[in-house]
């Protein structure tokens, strides 16, 4: 047995906290390995007992796109801005599934990790953050599938593709902000667990996934653009097809709302944190 890390005496003062507290970055950094382990655990556990394993990351978006193409594209005849329907849907499904999976799992994460939270001290923010980062693997696999479909349709990436990481980051910020809010709320009100599916369903329809934002009536446009997913999905479509660049004001609204969600989510989470161990 050896003494790990340092021999220096570390003094900790534990006392009541009041008001709003920000993030303790040095502490988060110290626990980075725990964070990666939680991400890895999420991935490992998810695919461990399924026969198709990571194949689900391909099947899910492909099936979804096939269903959308038949029902929304062919039957309902919803216009897709002259973009081939599978590409139109796929480029929206990618960020959407990242958001949906990230938000749903982050929202349930604290309650699911009750054992850890009530027994050991560690920065709690890593708990809702892990499933969001874990969802990036599915995103990556889905993106490779999309590249194959693009090849099939003869779509050559333009320089707009360089902006894809920006829209990806914006998706992660949005998912984290909402995820932190829901995770914190879920500890105190278990209804949140029931509300999340409805919230996601509503969010799905108010985002331009199965339709183009161009069909949204102009009078509700300003409100419609407050949904950060509007610019994100338009941005993904633009990055992939090179057409339909989101307007400057849509982008600004999206970035502002996403950051507002993130900052407020962190503060709410940190504020509720002190009660987690006895309510969870």
């Amino acid at each position, binding site marked *: 047995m050896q003494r790990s890390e340092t021999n220096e005496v570390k003094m*900790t003062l*534990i006392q*009541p*906290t009041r008001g709003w507290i920000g993030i303790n970055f040095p502490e988060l950094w110290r626990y980075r390995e725990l964070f990666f382990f939680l991400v890895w655990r999420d991935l490992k556990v998810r695919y461990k007992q399924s026969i198709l394993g990571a194949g689900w990351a391909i099947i899910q978006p492909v099936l979804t796109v096939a269903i959308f193409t038949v029902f929304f594209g062919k039957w309902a005849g919803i216009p897709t801005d002259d973009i081939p329907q599978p590409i139109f849907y796929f480029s929206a499904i990618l960020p959407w599934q990242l958001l949906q999976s990230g938000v749903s799992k982050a929202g349930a994460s604290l309650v699911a990790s009750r054992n850890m939270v*009530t027994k*050991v001290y560690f920065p709690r923010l890593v708990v809702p953050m892990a499933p969001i980062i874990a969802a990036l693997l599915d995103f990556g696999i889905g993106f490779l599938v999309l590249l194959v479909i693009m090849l099939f349709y003869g779509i050559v990436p333009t320089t707009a593709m360089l902006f894809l990481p920006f829209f990806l980051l914006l998706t992660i910020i949005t998912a984290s902000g909402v995820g932190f809010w829901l995770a914190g709320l879920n500890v105190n009100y278990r209804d949140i667990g029931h509300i999340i599916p409805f919230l996601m369903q509503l969010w799905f329809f108010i985002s331009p996934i199965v339709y183009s934002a161009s069909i949204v009536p102009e009078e509700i446009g300003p409100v419609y653009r407050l949904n950060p997913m509007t610019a994100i999905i338009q941005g993904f479509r633009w990055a992939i097809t090179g057409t339909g660049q989101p307007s400057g004001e849509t982008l600004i609204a999206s970035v502002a709302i996403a950051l507002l969600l993130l900052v407020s989510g962190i503060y709410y989470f940190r504020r509720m944190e002190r009660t987690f161990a006895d309510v969870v």
Partner: protein
Amino acid sequence: MSDSQHIEDVVVSLNAVSVKYTVPIVRFGTFKEYIIRRLQGRVRNREFWALNNINLQIQKGEVFGIVGRNGAGKSTLLKVVSRVLRPSQGSVRVNGRVAPLLELGAAFHPELTGRENVFLNAALLGHSQKDVEEHFESIVDFSEIGDFIDAPLRTYSSGMVARLGFSVATSWDPEILILDEVLAVGDEAFQAKCHARIGEFQAMGATVLLVSHNAHTVRSICHRAAWIDHGELQAVGNPADIVEQYRKAYSE
């Protein structure tokens, strides 16, 4: 001078620590119910002091036992010292690295193998992967898990899980070890090993804070003990006396 010397010897210091739980009289598990009652002005909370004005100093190298009935506040006290809970009032000063053993294998996942769980749990306790690799052999040896280390945890018996958990948590010599009833795990031979390991820590100057219902454990391994009831400190002193007082109080 002698004063500062004294302060350095105190590794855990609880100063007027109180922990308040707010328990709704009628428990509403749902938001709707809460809103309705709130609007009706019928949200009444019962304040419950799990710990009430506790003052306690624990010296370096001490094995300190805490006795009391279920719900007396023993576990709450350990949680405050290990930073899981924050006190509502007062403060706790902790001088050194704390290894909490509130429950063995808190992060264990049934689908992961023993090996994977060791790494995950060690990360939870704040150890780096490199650090765990260095200790891995000794962790597995101590736990007596053998070849099962690469089998999923769900195939383990509860004793095996507990042994692995104890092994992970105690493979780094902590400055302050916190034990909540965990000595009751495994068979007799393993318990003896646990006791021996605690003895080793102590020999290296570690401080041990433990909760036990076993009067024999408290009398045989503790230097001092405290009796807590209804969140209040009843007595502190010689373990044999404390156990005696505690027993008397409930035999009447």
